[in-house]
Every structure is written in C-alpha cells, then in structure tokens.
C-alpha cells in the first residue's frame, strides 16, 4: 500500500516498473528498492531460513542486517532493501545459503 497524501512530504507520480516475482509479473515505481516495491505489494516474506524454514522479511532496511536477502537475476544474497528496482528484474525467495548458478 502506498501513501497517497502526506502533511509534510510530496510523493510525485513516478514511472511504473515491471518486474518478475516468484514467476509472476508485478510492478513498482521508479525510485523503489526491490524491498519497498515488494512491501507495497503486501509481500512480507522475502526468504525462508535455511534449516528451520522460518519465514523472513526485512528488518533494518538500510543494508546492515542482511535479513532482506533474495535471489535477483539469478544472483543470491542480494540485499534487496538497498538495491534499486530495475525494469525486468527477476526476484525470487531464497531458501538456502545462496548458490551461484
């Protein structure tokens, strides 16, 4: 969900960006990070922990904790909270320690 009107900030209209998430085409806006675009789509689960398969989302959103890591364009362990969203990106949930294909 996006903020529509705000008493202090202005959120101007931005270009729509299409990308793939778990095989489905979804969209975000120019200026989003992968994490902010996913959160706006109500996607809270970004990965599953490697041993107990516990659902995980982001935590710090500025690139410190690495809780937000996902597989982006085949590359694992990408910190989605600080990675700008680019058109055509393929984003998948990571469930292991990261395998470079």
């Amino acid at each position, binding site marked *: 969900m996006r903020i529509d009107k705000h008493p*202090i900030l202005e959120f101007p209209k931005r270009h729509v960006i299409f990308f793939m998430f778990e095989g489905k085409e979804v969209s975000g806006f120019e200026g989003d990070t992968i994490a*902010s675009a996913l959160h706006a789509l109500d996607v809270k689960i*970004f990965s599953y*922990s490697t041993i107990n398969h516990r659902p995980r989302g982001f935590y710090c*959103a*500025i690139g410190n904790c690495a809780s937000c890591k996902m597989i982006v364009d085949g590359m694992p362990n990408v910190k989605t909270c*600080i990675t700008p969203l680019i058109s055509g990106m393929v984003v998948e949930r990571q469930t292991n320690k990261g395998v470079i294909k």
Partner: protein
Amino acid sequence: MIEKDLIIIGGGPSGLCAAKTALEAGISVLIIERNEHFGGQLVKQTHKFFGSKEQYAKTRGYDIAQKLLSDLSDFSNLTMLKGATVVGLYSDNVVTALVENKYIRYHANAIIVATGASEKFLAFENNDLPGIYGAGAIQTLMNLYGVLPGNQVVMVGSGNIGLIVSYQLLQAGVKVKAIIEASTKIGGYKVHASKIARLGVPILTSTTVKKAIGETELKAIEIVSLDENWKEIQGTSKVIEVDTLCISVGLTPMHQFLSMVGAQTKYVQELGGFVPVVNEHHQTSVNSIFVCGDAVGIEEASSAMMEGYLTGLYVTEFLNVKHPGYLKETAYYEKQLSMLRDGPFGTKTRVGLEKLKEGYLHAKS
C-alpha cells in the same frame, strides 16, 4: 591507486560537515557513501530539529541534509561517490571500495570514519517474523519510498526515535496502538511524548514484548508488565492484535572495518556499545584514522554535525595544513558541543566520554 589528502567514509551529517571544514583548508577530499543519496539518516527526518540556529533548529531534517550538501557545492577539491561501499581499510592508509561493482583502491594521508550507527535488536520469542521492523526501517519505507509499513503498529521503545517515528506513522495515516517501554519512565523528550499522548496513543511504561504471534506474518504480540528488577510480573500478560511491530531500542555505533587496522575499541554502555577509543581530537589509536558522529558514540544529529566540523579541523592540524580559522572555529564548535551536552539529556554522553578518555589513556600508556 587514487590519491587523496583525506577520505571520509560516510556521507551523513557528520561526514558532510567534516568535509566542509577540511576543504576550507584547501586539501583534496573524497567522500564515499554506500547509499544512493547523501545526508545519512537526515533525509528521512520529517520533523523540525531542536538545538540552536547553528544546528539548524526548527528546520526539517531533509532540509538540513540539503543545506549541508549545498555548503559543499563551491569546493572544487571534492569528489563525492554514492552507491559505493567501502570493503577494506588497511594500515598503510589504503581504502578499498566497490564502485559500480568495480573494485577500486584509494590512498589518503588521513581517513575519517563517519559511518553512523545501526539499530539494536530485541530478543523475544518469534522476533524473526515478517512484520517486525526497526524504527529506521519504518521511517525509510514511509518517508523515502512512500510505502505504508502496515495497518496498525505497536512501537517498542520510548526514546526520541520511538516517539518521533510514532508521530510520523500517525502523519502517514497509520494507527499506532501503543508505545511500550520496559523502563519505568519515558526515555525521550517529554514534548515528543506529549505530542503523542494528545493524539490518543497510550504510552505503557514498565512493559515489554514477550512473544510475537503469527504463522507466516505477525498477527499479534503478547506483552507483560515488568517489576523494578526488569522481571516479568506473573499474571500481567496481554495479547494485542497488530500487524506491524516497530523495534526502537537504541542504536549502536557501526565501525566494523576499524578492526581491520587494529584500532582499539572499548565497550562503553553510555555511548551505545563498542566505540573506537579516541583522543580529544577524535583520533583513534591508529594515528591517521579519525572517527566522528554516531560511529564514536550515539547522540543526536546536532552533535554529529558539530563533531564533524571539529574532526575536519583536527585533521587539517594532523596533516600540517593551515586552516584560516582553526583556533577560532575549533573553540566555537567545541563550545557548541559542550552546550548541547550540558543539560540532563547530555549526562549519559558526558559519562560515556569520560570512560572513553580513560580508555585512550590506558591504550596509550
């Protein structure tokens, strides 16, 4: 190898202010910032700042960031890199960084570490459920990206950040069900608390979160009351339905790569955790490396700015370069800093800095 007189790691308020005073002495400065924007945490701050005119009081945080950046626009000896992450610090004053995925090496005669802080976490059952975020994360989502964090929030922590972010949540149209605080009293400025109280948000002291509830996402939390010894009082458990839990339990200085050069650190609880041991000139135990801002002790942005200006000046002295107003400006900024730390809210910092001084004397002896 790219040569600079001074490399500043971190382009937040402290780093930007350090750059200004250093540049005034005519040296070449490189600022390396890992984010896609400069200004650090200031860019997310929508509230008006405290302090005095010198710290841009009554100016909104994001405007302060713009002001600090425009202060640097006239200097030709300045290079600013954003989206660039420092990955190594070496004892021969080499800094390595990933710049657009390329590995670049820099050498400087002095280095300032102004890397700020990271958020602390809280241990409780199921604290890894999606829907649980740091306060900074919530601010980033709302104020940088215009995304609503959730429908309803419970804020854990009543320090200034917890109180301010709660207010910002209300401004974004999100319901804040409660602020819970483990201690017996509110940690931040009472004016922030009063602002929240009149908007109908209950502040529950002596309360903590025991457990997060939900299968795949946060659905509710269990809170309990605490006695004077921070122990749970049996029978006080309550469940609050909520989809977003915001953890604001403090910051801890961030300076991991200082260990690559063996810079001494000391655990000082009052300053937020492990801090690099520095002398009054913000110089670490590695002579050419300086630290300022939250990375050397958690305080406010106003202090980070004053420390930045000072450290930039101290570096010019270390480099034996003449700064036109060295004596006047160091005296001025030291006085500003002392005034900011003078009141009751500065006590913790003053105590912490004393401990740090002891640490430096011990390290040097």
